[in-house]
């Protein structure tokens, strides 16, 4: 007798039922047997806070564009957004995976502490701001002040990066294949060693970007000159 697998997808139409119902039902999966474990949300119409606060090993497919904070504070879930996402997609995510088919607005993955955020389009300003352990892979380009005060985790950009990349960065690793318009305070280009190549390769693979050649990237990180306040550095701010 064949093992039964879950193939049914729970369909939620946001034109017919309120967002509150969707999030409530998704939250109820935490601590339960997490069934149904596959969800499809349609008619998102730019709604904010779609599928935020999840904490279950489920797959949520969001068909269309979403507003702010989609998949915010995600834990364990995989959220796929087919369209564009507004400000703060996957903000403060802890674990799981968030994949955006289109572009994302500013502060994507802000303060994220774990998990993986994949963006197939471009990301706006402040991508990975204050990131604390999340990994972010962007196929396109990212805007200014990305990875501002970034603490941990890795940011991979297959396109270009805007002004003030990695301003006041701590221990986050940044890899950029294209042009960097400018580096922020205390962010410098760093040596690309074998383990960095392995890290980059692994992230591209996890992001599903097997077609991207890892050899063309440059690595950026902290010069660590601002880690302890010295008056002689005051001109750097």
């Amino acid at each position, binding site marked *: 007798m064949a093992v039964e697998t879950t193939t049914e997808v729970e369909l939620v139409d946001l034109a017919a039922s309120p967002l509150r119902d969707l999030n409530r039902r998704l939250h109820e999966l935490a601590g339960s047997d997490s069934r149904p474990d596959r969800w499809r949300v349609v008619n998102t119409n730019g709604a904010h806070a779609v599928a935020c606060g999840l*904490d279950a090993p489920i797959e949520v497919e969001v068909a269309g564009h979403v507003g702010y904070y989609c998949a915010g*504070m995600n834990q364990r879930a995989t959220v796929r957004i087919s369209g564009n996402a507004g400000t703060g997609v996957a903000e403060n995510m802890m674990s799981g995976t968030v994949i955006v088919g289109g572009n994302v607005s500013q502060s994507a993955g802000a*303060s994220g502490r774990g998990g993986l955020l994949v963006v197939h389009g471009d990301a706006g300003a402040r991508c990975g701001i204050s990131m604390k352990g999340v990994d972010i892979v962007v196929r396109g380009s990212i805007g200014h002040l990305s990875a501002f005060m970034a603490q941990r985790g890795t940011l991979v950009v297959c396109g270009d990066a805007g002004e003030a990349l990695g301003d006041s960065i701590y221990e986050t690793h940044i890899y950029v294949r294209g042009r960097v318009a400018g580096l922020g305070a205390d962010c410098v280009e760093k040596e690309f060693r074998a383990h960095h190549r392995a890290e980059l390769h692994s992230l591209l693979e996890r992001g599903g970007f097997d077609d991207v050649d890892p050899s063309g990237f440059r690595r950026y990180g902290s010069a660590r000159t601002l880690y302890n306040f010295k008056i002689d550095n005051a001109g750097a701010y």
Partner: protein
Amino acid sequence: MAAIHAGGWQPGLRESYLYDRNVIAEIQRAAREGIYDIRGFGAKRRVPHFDDLLLLGASISRYPLEGYRERCGTDVVLGTRFARKPLELKIPVTIAGMSFGALSAPAKEALGRAATEVGTSTTTGDGGMTPEERQSSKLLVYQVLPSRYGMNPDDLRSADAIEIVVGQGAKPGGGGMLLGHKISDRVAEMRDLPKGIDQRSASRHPDWTGPDDLEIKIIELREITDWEKPVFVKVGATRTYYDVQLAVKAGADVIVVDGMQGGTAATQDVFIEHVGIPTLPAVRLAVQALTELGMHRRVQLIVSGGIRTGADVAKALALGADATSIGTAALIALGDNSPEHEEEYRAIGSAAGYYDDWQAGLDPVGISTQDDDLAGRLDPVLGARKVANYLRVLTLEAQTLARACGKSHVHNLEPEDLVALTVEAAAMAGVPLAGTNWIPGSGEASR
């Protein structure tokens, strides 16, 4: 000139008002060290405060309540606007947000125990929630700060209320810096940063930038917590009228306004003393903003910044606040600046009654430190007892004053029960100068 060297003042020695001894010492220190003075505590300059107001006790035209006999209620419910589970407090005084990192673990535990003992709430701080703190605090408010250090949805869900911190009275518009020498292994781990480096706390939130964004951020936090928790918005007092209106518009359940006297663990002295407005005008502006929107009492107002006595509590409530919050005073109750440690304060270049180097991590009492030996001196049970006693005294004092004004609940105190001692306080608080019906500035746009 020999007489001068003999020490002490004598006729002809005239100190400059402009360049007094503190100013001269600070100029000399700046020239020597090449960096601004960073310290803890709040503003030390004199500003108009609740001391400049008096309550009008009942007499013939008003009827008092019997002290020690007749009931005067002190309970407060916070978060009645949208939250499914509002915060129910027994007293109108809460413990303000102070971080684990700035404070030792026993200090945080003591504050939680004390708040629990008297039926009020305590608040996390910049650095996340510790399990000890959650365990010791029956009612715990979880702060969402710009740094998002330790931010965790599990903690968010375990909290009893959420406080979005936009600013604090000691440094509106400023972030913070926890200096490297206070970063223990545990603090570093909680904040996702290496040990020993200065930890900058951002001044701006990473994922929202204005009132329209804030509205959506609040919705997200409500969605994550299934609309259960009250959402507070805390601002440092500056453009208070507008900030309060914008916070109401953004959907706050509760607004916390922290005047410039509010304390800090580590901020530049120039920031503490020169940015923000005093608590006194801030209360009036906040109440005015709420009243004009028809939201006074529907969105609750917590006022902090220099609350020291039950008189301060009563006067803040009379001006229209729903509750008050204490930080500095709670630490003093816990033992900060106690003469018991005079010798040790002297050894680190300070004195009991003057100690404000909370940033340094050398606190002999064990409050503002991450040194295990120093922190170990603070008994959280004994400390909690002292803070609980103090909270009870604040409440009893406020009740005493309210009864004298004929009020069966501290919330029945009203601006009509107040007069001001100075023209400045009258203008700022919007109550008449004592013995007159003159409220300077009334009838004019004063926002």
